[in-house]
């Protein structure tokens, strides 16, 4: 068994196990940590696939950014050791059935399909190419989405502020009046 196969098995087992744990763990903070493991393992896969840049992005943005955000919010909204009662078994079973059927359906359909690789030469993925592509305006250039995403980020920022901004005393007064 080649080393990459072993790595793949390792990563995939980690991903699957921790994914399942993420969605089943009763302790929310643990779930967040499991998620972190999943994301890290995924970035491992990316390394395997030779997408170092993306793996880095994954680690910093996802693992470093989002998970931290999540953990902060958990801390804001829950007690650390708080246990959540598990959901009703009905819900679990039906959801599991739905997810299983969906997964089976997808897998069967995927396996059914004959993938055919292109014959064109693979491109070496290096930072230069990525940078060029990101700033290119032509075919296969990604400057436009890059720009749009900036708008999105701005908007998201403003949005988050609008929602989460502390209620001003005046508004709070109004709120009291309403309730």
């Amino acid at each position, binding site marked *: 068994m080649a080393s990459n196969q072993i790595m793949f098995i390792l990563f995939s087992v980690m991903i699957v196990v921790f994914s399942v744990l993420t969605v089943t763990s009763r302790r929310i903070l643990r779930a967040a940590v499991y998620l972190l493991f999943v994301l890290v393992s995924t970035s491992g896969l990316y390394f395997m696939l030779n997408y170092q840049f993306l793996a880095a992005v994954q680690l910093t943005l996802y693992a470093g950014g989002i998970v931290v955000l999540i953990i902060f919010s958990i801390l804001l909204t829950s007690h650390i050791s708080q246990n959540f009662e598990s959901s009703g078994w009905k819900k679990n079973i039906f959801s599991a059935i739905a997810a299983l059927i969906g997964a089976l359906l997808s897998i069967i359909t995927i396996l059914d399909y004959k993938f055919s690789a292109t014959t064109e030469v693979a491109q070496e993925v290096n930072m230069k190419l990525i940078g060029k592509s990101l700033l290119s305006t032509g075919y296969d250039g990604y400057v436009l989405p890059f720009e749009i995403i900036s708008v999105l980020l701005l908007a998201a920022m403003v949005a988050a502020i609008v*929602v989460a901004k502390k209620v001003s005393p005046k508004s709070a007064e109004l709120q009291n009046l309403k309730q």
Partner: protein
Amino acid sequence: MSLGTFLIMRHELLLITAALLVLIAELFWNPEKKKGISHFSLILFGVITIIGFLPSPEGSIFGGMYVSSGTRLLMKNILNIGTLIVFIQSIGWLKKEENVEKVSEYFLLLISTLVGMNFMISAGHFLIFYIGIELAIIPIAALAAYDRYKNKSAEAGIKLILSSALSSGILLYGISMIYGTTGTLYFNEVAALFGNTNLQILGFIFFFAGMAFKISIVPFHLWTADVYEGSPVNITSYLSVISKGASVFILMIILFTVFPVIIATWQKTIFVVSVLTMTIGNLFAIRQQNLKRFLAFSSISQAGYILLGMIGGNQLGMASIIYYILVYVFSNLGAFGVVAAISNAKGKENIDDYNGLYHTNPKLSLVMTLALFSLAGIPPVAGFFGKFFLFTAAAQKGFYLLVFIAVLNTIISLYYYLLVVKAMFISKSDTPIESFKSDISTRIALGICIAGIVLTGFASIIFEVIRNLSFGV
């Protein structure tokens, strides 16, 4: 790439500029001046709307990622008009004390969603499309939760953002299948390489479900009612008209240009979901008391009718959809405008509260009636023409059964629209909504809506223009 080519992106650029100007104004204006920020935004947007109608070059830039054509410009203009009306309607609401300190955010976020929609419509690549669609929905989730002191508003926000995240996931999964089987994400290339294999259909259906969510097509519609009810009225009207309209446009474009190969599949799909959508939407609408919720279900069933224009994949279908959306913009905004006016003035949103409204506020009642008749497709208002063309488009391809079901559904819908009319005109009330004078902006907005409702139908030129810009599979 010359600077001139940016003119092709005129709509988006103008909007981004506007958004930034609003931001700058918010940051640098003094508090006194800030009171004028809503008027400033309004004027800004009005100018943009007008500029939007100026002739514009067409073509595709960024290597085909961004496509501009007459049809797409038209769609953007329609969205602009709708947004303008929403803006005008919201002026009065924004003056309320609890909203004063976040006026500019309101405009900024709405404009940025509009940017997202415009990119979405002009997308020639799934990436642009995806980012556009996210940009179009994420800020709205925040706006849905705009009323920070209201539970319902927060609930609407969370329901919207989580549902939309799930649907994005599904959508992405579909796109990944499409990518995997064709090796490209450019629309025109996908169209050429797409086939009729199981995996591709799977990908298509996942993609379709994601889009169906945005248009609130059954069974992906369940978020709609709650979000519509919980959001501030103006956001609801924006969601129900502009968001939905934009999603319809892009779904139609994608179906027509990217997936013509599997037309048989999506026709069947649309057949099934449109029957479901119309019927379920109507069945739920019958029982609603809250007008926003009521209009939510009504708009679900409207989405079902709209699908009739898509199913044929014909030029007439596209024309009728664009036309219908235009009509729908006026009609639904008219209805929401009245709801907003009354909700903001008296805080009443239930149908029962409208009992005897005609006797105290005849003008509002008339606007509401016309708008509802237009939604129901009653002549001589524009909705009649819109529906007629939709049905014609479906019938052209032989979907008579579907047309029949749709028309039967319009009867159910007529029933509940008439319930509102009944409340306003016929029912008696001991405590009717007192007579009040709505502010000037509301009146202007409603005036525009009424003019649109009445004129869009009779002025055949509008339909002809749209028709000439439309295309089929």
